[in-house]
C-alpha cells in the first residue's frame, strides 16, 4: 500500500515537473548573461576558463557563501559525532593492510598530492579549480587511512590550513573593497591570458580554496573513520 501510494505520488510529481519544464528547448542558444561572460570574460577578468571567472569574479560572493556552507557542514559533522571521550587505546591496534596496498599507497600518495596541486593552481587556465583539487588531495589522505587501519593523523595542520584559506579569501575580498570599492575587486594586473601568472586575484583565491577544501574534506573523513 505504501509503495503504491509512493509511486502514484511520484508519477504525479515528476509528470508535473516535466510538463512544466519541457517547454525549455534543448539545444537552445545561450542566454544573454552567459553570452556576455563568454564574449567579454577574458577581457574583464583575464581568466581563460570562463567557468572559473564566473565562479570567482562575477559571482565571487556566492562562492564565499558556498565555502561557508561546507565549513558549517564540517563543523556540524564534528559536533554531531563528538562523544566527549577520547579513545585512548586507539593507537595500539593499528592493523596494516597487505603489502601490496601499503606499498601502492606509499607510491601513489605524493603523486596524487602533486596532481591535486596542479589542478587548483591551473584553475584559471584548464578544467578544474580549488574545489576539485581539494577533493583530489582529500582522496590521497583516504589512501593513508586505508593503508593502515586505526592510524590517527594529527588534525592540527589541517585546522590551521582551513582557517588560513578562509582568511585569505575574505582578506583578498576586503582589500578589493578598500581599493576598488566593491568586494572581490580584481586589484592585481590581469597579465597575459593563458599564462600561469594571469587573471589577477583569481589564482590566489583558488589556491586558498584548494587548501581549505582539501583540509576540510580530510577532517570530515577523519571524523567519520574515527567513529566507525
Amino acid at each position, binding site marked *: 500500500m*505504501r*509503495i503504491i501510494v*509512493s*509511486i502514484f*505520488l*511520484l508519477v504525479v*510529481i*515528476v509528470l508535473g*515537473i*516535466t510538463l512544466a*519544464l*519541457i517547454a*525549455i528547448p*534543448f*539545444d*537552445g*542558444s*545561450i*542566454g544573454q*548573461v*552567459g553570452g556576455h*561572460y*563568454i*564574449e567579454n*570574460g*577574458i577581457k574583464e577578468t583575464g581568466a*581563460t*576558463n*570562463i*567557468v572559473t571567472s*564566473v*565562479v570567482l569574479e562575477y*559571482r565571487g560572493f*556566492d*562562492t564565499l557563501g*558556498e565555502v561557508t*556552507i*561546507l565549513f*558549517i*557542514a*564540517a563543523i*556540524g*559533522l564534528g559536533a*554531531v*559525532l563528538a562523544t566527549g571521550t577520547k579513545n585512548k587505546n586507539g593507537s595500539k591496534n593499528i592493523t596494516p593492510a597487505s603489502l601490496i596496498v601499503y606499498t601502492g599507497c606509499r607510491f601513489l600518495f605524493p603523486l596524487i598530492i602533486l596532481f591535486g596541486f596542479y589542478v587548483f593552481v591551473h584553475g584559471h*587556465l*584548464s*578544467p578544474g*579549480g580549488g*574545489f576539485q583539487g581539494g577533493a583530489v588531495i582529500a582522496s590521497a589522505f583516504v589512501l593513508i587511512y586505508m593503508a593502515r587501519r586505526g592510524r590517527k593523523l594529527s588534525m592540527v595542520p589541517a585546522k590551521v590550513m582551513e582557517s588560513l584559506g578562509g582568511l585569505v579569501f575574505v582578506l583578498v575580498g576586503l582589500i578589493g573593497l578598500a581599493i576598488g570599492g566593491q568586494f572581490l575587486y580584481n586589484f592585481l594586473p590581469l597579465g597575459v*591570458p*593563458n599564462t600561469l601568472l594571469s587573471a589577477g586575484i583569481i589564482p590566489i583565491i583558488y589556491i586558498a580554496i584548494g587548501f581549505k*577544501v582539501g583540509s576540510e*574534506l580530510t577532517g*570530515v573523513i577523519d*571524523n*567519520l573513520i574515527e*567513529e*566507525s
Partner: protein
Amino acid sequence: MDSNLIINFLDNYIYYIGAFGLVFIGLLIILIKKNLIKVIIGLGILDTGVNLFLITVGYIKQGTAPIFSKPGLDPATMVDPVPQALVLTSIVIGVAILALALSLAIRLYRHYGTLNLRRIKEQRW
C-alpha cells in the same frame, strides 16, 4: 516514419528523460526504502539528477567547454558557462549534505542499535 519520429523525439528529449528519470529513482528510493543508508544513497541520486538537468539546459549540440585553451576557438559554439558554475556550487553543497546525513545516521545507529527506519518509532510514517 514511425521509428524516425521516435528517434527524433529521443534526440530532442533524451537528456531531460535521463535527468527526470534519476530524480524519479532518487525520490522513489527515499520514499520506500527501509535502510537509512539506502535513503541517503537515494538523496545522492536525486542530487545527480537535478545537476544533470541544470547542465542540460545550457548545452549546445557540438558545443565545446567554455575554456579558451587554444587560439581559434569560436565563442559562438561554446556552451553556457552559468549553469556549469551553478552546478559546481550545487555539487559542493551536495557533498556537505551527504556528510551531515551520514554523521546523523551514525549517531542514530549508536542510539537505537539499528538503521531500519521501521523499527525506530520516531521515524515511522
